[in-house]
Protein backbone atom coordinates (compact mmCIF):
# COMPACT_ATOMS: atom_id res chain seq x y z
CA UNK A 1 0.00 0.00 0.00
CA UNK A 2 1.11 3.52 -0.68
CA UNK A 3 -0.18 5.43 2.27
CA UNK A 4 -1.50 8.89 1.57
CA UNK A 5 -0.91 8.68 -2.18
CA UNK A 6 -3.64 8.90 -4.78
CA UNK A 7 -3.32 5.15 -5.46
CA UNK A 8 -4.37 4.34 -1.92
CA UNK A 9 -7.32 6.71 -2.00
CA UNK A 10 -8.48 5.59 -5.43
CA UNK A 11 -8.26 1.94 -4.30
CA UNK A 12 -10.26 2.65 -1.12
CA UNK A 13 -12.84 4.84 -2.88
CA UNK A 14 -13.21 2.31 -5.70
CA UNK A 15 -13.90 -0.46 -3.18
CA UNK A 16 -16.34 1.53 -0.99
CA UNK A 17 -18.29 2.97 -3.93
CA UNK A 18 -18.41 -0.45 -5.62
CA UNK A 19 -19.83 -2.12 -2.51
CA UNK A 20 -22.36 0.70 -2.12
CA UNK A 21 -23.56 0.39 -5.72
CA UNK A 22 -23.79 -3.42 -5.32
CA UNK A 23 -25.90 -3.06 -2.18
CA UNK A 24 -28.27 -0.76 -4.03
CA UNK A 25 -28.35 -3.09 -7.04
CA UNK A 26 -29.62 -5.92 -4.82
CA UNK A 27 -32.31 -3.61 -3.37
CA UNK A 28 -33.22 -2.49 -6.92
CA UNK A 29 -33.66 -6.09 -8.11
CA UNK A 30 -36.03 -6.74 -5.19
CA UNK A 31 -38.07 -3.57 -5.84
CA UNK A 32 -38.34 -4.34 -9.57
CA UNK A 33 -39.42 -7.89 -8.74
CA UNK A 34 -42.39 -6.40 -6.84
CA UNK A 35 -43.85 -5.33 -10.21
CA UNK A 36 -44.72 -9.01 -10.72
CA UNK A 37 -47.22 -8.70 -7.85
CA UNK A 38 -49.35 -6.08 -9.60
CA UNK A 39 -49.72 -2.28 -9.77
CA UNK A 40 -51.02 -1.74 -6.22
CA UNK A 41 -48.18 -3.50 -4.42
CA UNK A 42 -45.53 -2.02 -6.77
CA UNK A 43 -46.76 1.58 -6.63
CA UNK A 44 -47.26 1.44 -2.86
CA UNK A 45 -43.73 0.12 -2.35
CA UNK A 46 -41.80 2.48 -4.63
CA UNK A 47 -43.34 5.57 -2.98
CA UNK A 48 -40.56 5.00 -0.43
CA UNK A 49 -38.00 6.09 -3.06
CA UNK A 50 -39.71 9.50 -3.43
CA UNK A 51 -39.21 10.44 0.22
CA UNK A 52 -36.64 13.11 1.04
CA UNK A 53 -34.42 10.80 3.07
CA UNK A 54 -34.20 8.16 0.31
CA UNK A 55 -33.56 10.93 -2.24
CA UNK A 56 -30.52 11.98 -0.22
CA UNK A 57 -29.36 8.35 -0.11
CA UNK A 58 -29.87 8.10 -3.91
CA UNK A 59 -27.53 11.06 -4.28
CA UNK A 60 -24.83 9.07 -2.47
CA UNK A 61 -25.56 6.21 -4.85
CA UNK A 62 -25.25 8.40 -7.97
CA UNK A 63 -22.02 9.99 -6.69
CA UNK A 64 -20.64 6.49 -6.03
CA UNK A 65 -21.68 5.28 -9.48
CA UNK A 66 -20.09 8.30 -11.20
CA UNK A 67 -16.80 7.94 -9.32
CA UNK A 68 -16.67 4.15 -9.81
CA UNK A 69 -17.40 4.47 -13.55
CA UNK A 70 -14.78 7.15 -14.24
CA UNK A 71 -12.14 5.64 -11.97
CA UNK A 72 -12.79 2.31 -13.70
CA UNK A 73 -12.00 3.97 -17.05
CA UNK A 74 -8.82 5.38 -15.45
CA UNK A 75 -7.75 1.92 -14.25
CA UNK A 76 -8.42 0.37 -17.68
CA UNK A 77 -6.47 3.16 -19.41
CA UNK A 78 -3.44 2.57 -17.17
CA UNK A 79 -3.70 -1.23 -17.55
CA UNK A 80 -3.82 -1.25 -21.35
CA UNK A 81 -2.09 1.99 -22.42
CA UNK A 82 1.64 1.78 -21.70
CA UNK A 83 2.05 5.54 -21.24
CA UNK A 84 -1.07 5.78 -19.05
CA UNK A 85 0.90 5.06 -15.90
CA UNK A 86 2.66 8.43 -16.13
CA UNK A 87 -0.68 10.24 -15.90
CA UNK A 88 -2.26 8.13 -13.15
CA UNK A 89 -2.26 10.94 -10.59
CA UNK A 90 -3.47 13.57 -13.06
CA UNK A 91 -6.21 11.20 -14.22
CA UNK A 92 -7.27 10.65 -10.60
CA UNK A 93 -7.87 14.37 -10.23
CA UNK A 94 -9.74 14.43 -13.57
CA UNK A 95 -11.93 11.57 -12.29
CA UNK A 96 -12.74 13.56 -9.13
CA UNK A 97 -13.41 16.73 -11.16
CA UNK A 98 -15.73 15.02 -13.69
CA UNK A 99 -17.56 13.23 -10.86
CA UNK A 100 -18.20 16.51 -9.01
CA UNK A 101 -19.08 18.36 -12.22
CA UNK A 102 -21.78 15.85 -13.19
CA UNK A 103 -22.93 15.44 -9.59
CA UNK A 104 -23.89 19.09 -9.05
CA UNK A 105 -26.77 19.25 -11.60
CA UNK A 106 -27.88 15.81 -10.38
CA UNK A 107 -28.39 17.19 -6.87
CA UNK A 108 -30.77 19.78 -8.32
CA UNK A 109 -32.76 17.26 -10.37
CA UNK A 110 -33.11 14.74 -7.54
CA UNK A 111 -33.81 17.18 -4.68
CA UNK A 112 -35.91 19.92 -6.37
CA UNK A 113 -39.21 17.93 -6.17
CA UNK A 114 -38.89 17.92 -2.36
CA UNK A 115 -39.22 21.73 -2.54
CA UNK A 116 -42.14 21.58 -4.96
CA UNK A 117 -40.08 22.28 -8.09
CA UNK A 118 -40.27 19.77 -10.97
CA UNK A 119 -37.32 20.33 -13.34
CA UNK A 120 -38.39 17.27 -15.36
CA UNK A 121 -41.79 18.84 -16.10
CA UNK A 122 -43.87 16.62 -13.93
CA UNK A 123 -43.52 15.03 -10.56
CA UNK A 124 -46.00 13.86 -7.97
CA UNK A 125 -46.03 15.71 -4.68
CA UNK A 126 -43.41 13.64 -2.91
CA UNK A 127 -44.13 12.17 0.47
CA UNK A 128 -41.96 13.47 3.28
Amino acid at each position, binding site marked *: *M*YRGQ*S*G*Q*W*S*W*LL*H*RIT*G*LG*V*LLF*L*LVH*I*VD*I*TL*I*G*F*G*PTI*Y*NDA*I*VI*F*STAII*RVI*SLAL*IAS*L*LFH*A*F*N*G*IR*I*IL*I*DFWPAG*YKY*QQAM*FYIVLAVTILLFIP*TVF*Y*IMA*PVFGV*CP*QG*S*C*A*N*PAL
Partner: protein
Amino acid sequence: MASNTTTTAPERTITKYGAYAKPSKGANGWETFSWYFFRISGVGLVFLALIHVFFVHISTDVSETVYGFVAARYANPFWRLYDLLLLTLALFHGLNGLRIACGDYIQSRGWRLTVSSALFFIAITFWLMGSLTIIMFQPNQTLAQSIMSFLGR
Protein backbone atom coordinates in the same frame (compact mmCIF):
# COMPACT_ATOMS: atom_id res chain seq x y z
CA MET B 1 4.65 -16.70 -4.54
CA ALA B 2 2.26 -18.34 -2.17
CA SER B 3 0.82 -20.68 -4.77
CA ASN B 4 1.53 -23.85 -2.77
CA THR B 5 0.18 -22.76 0.58
CA THR B 6 -3.46 -23.55 1.15
CA THR B 7 -4.04 -21.34 4.17
CA THR B 8 -3.23 -17.87 2.84
CA ALA B 9 -5.25 -15.64 0.54
CA PRO B 10 -4.31 -15.64 -3.16
CA GLU B 11 -1.45 -13.24 -3.57
CA ARG B 12 -2.62 -9.98 -5.05
CA THR B 13 -0.50 -6.97 -5.78
CA ILE B 14 -2.08 -3.55 -5.50
CA THR B 15 -0.55 -1.28 -8.10
CA LYS B 16 0.52 2.26 -7.29
CA TYR B 17 -2.58 3.51 -9.13
CA GLY B 18 -4.94 1.61 -6.87
CA ALA B 19 -6.00 -1.44 -8.88
CA TYR B 20 -5.11 -5.10 -8.68
CA ALA B 21 -2.24 -6.11 -10.93
CA LYS B 22 -3.05 -8.64 -13.63
CA PRO B 23 -2.37 -12.16 -12.26
CA SER B 24 1.02 -13.38 -13.45
CA LYS B 25 1.29 -15.93 -16.24
CA GLY B 26 0.76 -19.44 -14.91
CA ALA B 27 -1.42 -18.13 -12.12
CA ASN B 28 -4.90 -19.52 -11.52
CA GLY B 29 -6.74 -19.19 -14.85
CA TRP B 30 -9.95 -18.26 -13.08
CA GLU B 31 -8.34 -15.17 -11.51
CA THR B 32 -7.02 -14.11 -14.91
CA PHE B 33 -10.51 -14.49 -16.37
CA SER B 34 -11.89 -12.50 -13.42
CA TRP B 35 -9.34 -9.71 -14.03
CA TYR B 36 -10.39 -9.43 -17.69
CA PHE B 37 -14.10 -9.78 -16.87
CA PHE B 38 -13.96 -6.73 -14.55
CA ARG B 39 -12.48 -4.61 -17.33
CA ILE B 40 -14.62 -5.83 -20.22
CA SER B 41 -17.90 -5.70 -18.27
CA GLY B 42 -16.71 -2.40 -16.78
CA VAL B 43 -16.46 -0.72 -20.19
CA GLY B 44 -19.99 -1.92 -21.02
CA LEU B 45 -21.36 -0.88 -17.63
CA VAL B 46 -20.02 2.68 -17.88
CA PHE B 47 -22.41 3.20 -20.80
CA LEU B 48 -25.24 0.86 -19.76
CA ALA B 49 -25.45 2.05 -16.14
CA LEU B 50 -24.93 5.79 -16.70
CA ILE B 51 -27.41 5.93 -19.61
CA HIS B 52 -29.91 3.90 -17.54
CA VAL B 53 -29.60 6.18 -14.51
CA PHE B 54 -29.85 9.33 -16.62
CA PHE B 55 -32.85 8.37 -18.76
CA VAL B 56 -34.80 6.33 -16.21
CA HIS B 57 -33.96 7.92 -12.87
CA ILE B 58 -32.92 11.54 -13.52
CA SER B 59 -34.76 12.76 -16.62
CA THR B 60 -37.90 11.20 -15.13
CA ASP B 61 -38.54 11.98 -11.49
CA VAL B 62 -38.61 8.93 -9.23
CA SER B 63 -42.20 9.75 -8.23
CA GLU B 64 -43.24 9.21 -11.89
CA THR B 65 -41.58 5.83 -12.46
CA VAL B 66 -44.76 3.98 -11.49
CA TYR B 67 -46.28 0.74 -12.83
CA GLY B 68 -47.59 2.39 -16.02
CA PHE B 69 -44.17 3.92 -16.76
CA VAL B 70 -42.51 0.50 -16.61
CA ALA B 71 -45.32 -1.08 -18.67
CA ALA B 72 -44.91 1.57 -21.41
CA ARG B 73 -41.14 1.13 -21.41
CA TYR B 74 -41.36 -2.66 -21.56
CA ALA B 75 -43.71 -2.51 -24.55
CA ASN B 76 -40.44 -2.08 -26.46
CA PRO B 77 -38.38 -5.30 -26.40
CA PHE B 78 -35.20 -3.24 -26.84
CA TRP B 79 -35.46 -1.94 -23.26
CA ARG B 80 -36.03 -5.46 -21.93
CA LEU B 81 -32.86 -6.62 -23.69
CA TYR B 82 -31.00 -3.52 -22.45
CA ASP B 83 -32.09 -4.12 -18.85
CA LEU B 84 -31.26 -7.83 -19.07
CA LEU B 85 -27.72 -7.02 -20.24
CA LEU B 86 -27.33 -4.35 -17.55
CA LEU B 87 -28.66 -6.69 -14.85
CA THR B 88 -26.36 -9.55 -15.87
CA LEU B 89 -23.16 -7.52 -16.20
CA ALA B 90 -23.77 -5.38 -13.09
CA LEU B 91 -24.71 -8.32 -10.84
CA PHE B 92 -21.73 -10.49 -11.76
CA HIS B 93 -19.29 -7.53 -11.84
CA GLY B 94 -20.49 -6.43 -8.40
CA LEU B 95 -20.65 -9.81 -6.68
CA ASN B 96 -17.27 -10.79 -8.14
CA GLY B 97 -15.95 -7.56 -6.60
CA LEU B 98 -17.47 -8.52 -3.26
CA ARG B 99 -15.84 -11.97 -3.58
CA ILE B 100 -12.43 -10.33 -4.11
CA ALA B 101 -13.00 -7.89 -1.24
CA CYS B 102 -14.03 -10.69 1.15
CA GLY B 103 -11.04 -12.78 0.05
CA ASP B 104 -8.71 -9.97 1.16
CA TYR B 105 -9.90 -10.27 4.74
CA ILE B 106 -10.37 -14.06 5.01
CA GLN B 107 -7.22 -16.08 5.65
CA SER B 108 -8.69 -19.58 5.67
CA ARG B 109 -9.18 -21.31 2.33
CA GLY B 110 -12.24 -23.13 3.61
CA TRP B 111 -14.00 -19.94 4.66
CA ARG B 112 -13.09 -18.23 1.38
CA LEU B 113 -14.68 -21.13 -0.47
CA THR B 114 -17.76 -20.95 1.78
CA VAL B 115 -18.17 -17.21 1.21
CA SER B 116 -17.60 -17.55 -2.55
CA SER B 117 -20.22 -20.30 -2.73
CA ALA B 118 -22.71 -18.18 -0.78
CA LEU B 119 -22.07 -15.23 -3.13
CA PHE B 120 -22.55 -17.51 -6.13
CA PHE B 121 -25.89 -18.66 -4.68
CA ILE B 122 -26.91 -14.99 -4.16
CA ALA B 123 -25.86 -14.21 -7.75
CA ILE B 124 -28.01 -16.98 -9.21
CA THR B 125 -31.01 -16.15 -6.97
CA PHE B 126 -31.00 -12.42 -7.77
CA TRP B 127 -30.26 -13.03 -11.45
CA LEU B 128 -33.27 -15.36 -11.68
CA MET B 129 -35.52 -12.85 -9.86
CA GLY B 130 -34.43 -9.99 -12.08
CA SER B 131 -34.34 -11.76 -15.41
CA LEU B 132 -37.68 -13.53 -14.90
CA THR B 133 -39.28 -10.16 -14.13
CA ILE B 134 -37.67 -8.45 -17.14
CA ILE B 135 -38.52 -11.25 -19.60
CA MET B 136 -41.95 -12.36 -18.33
CA PHE B 137 -43.55 -9.02 -17.30
CA GLN B 138 -46.97 -8.49 -18.92
CA PRO B 139 -49.09 -5.40 -18.06
CA ASN B 140 -51.92 -6.14 -15.65
CA GLN B 141 -50.81 -9.71 -15.07
CA THR B 142 -48.88 -10.94 -12.09
CA LEU B 143 -45.58 -12.70 -12.72
CA ALA B 144 -47.20 -15.98 -11.65
CA GLN B 145 -50.03 -15.47 -14.18
CA SER B 146 -47.57 -14.66 -17.00
CA ILE B 147 -45.54 -17.77 -16.23
CA MET B 148 -48.66 -19.96 -16.05
CA SER B 149 -50.00 -18.64 -19.37
CA PHE B 150 -46.54 -19.11 -20.91
CA LEU B 151 -46.67 -22.72 -19.75
CA GLY B 152 -50.16 -23.04 -21.29
CA ARG B 153 -52.03 -23.46 -18.01
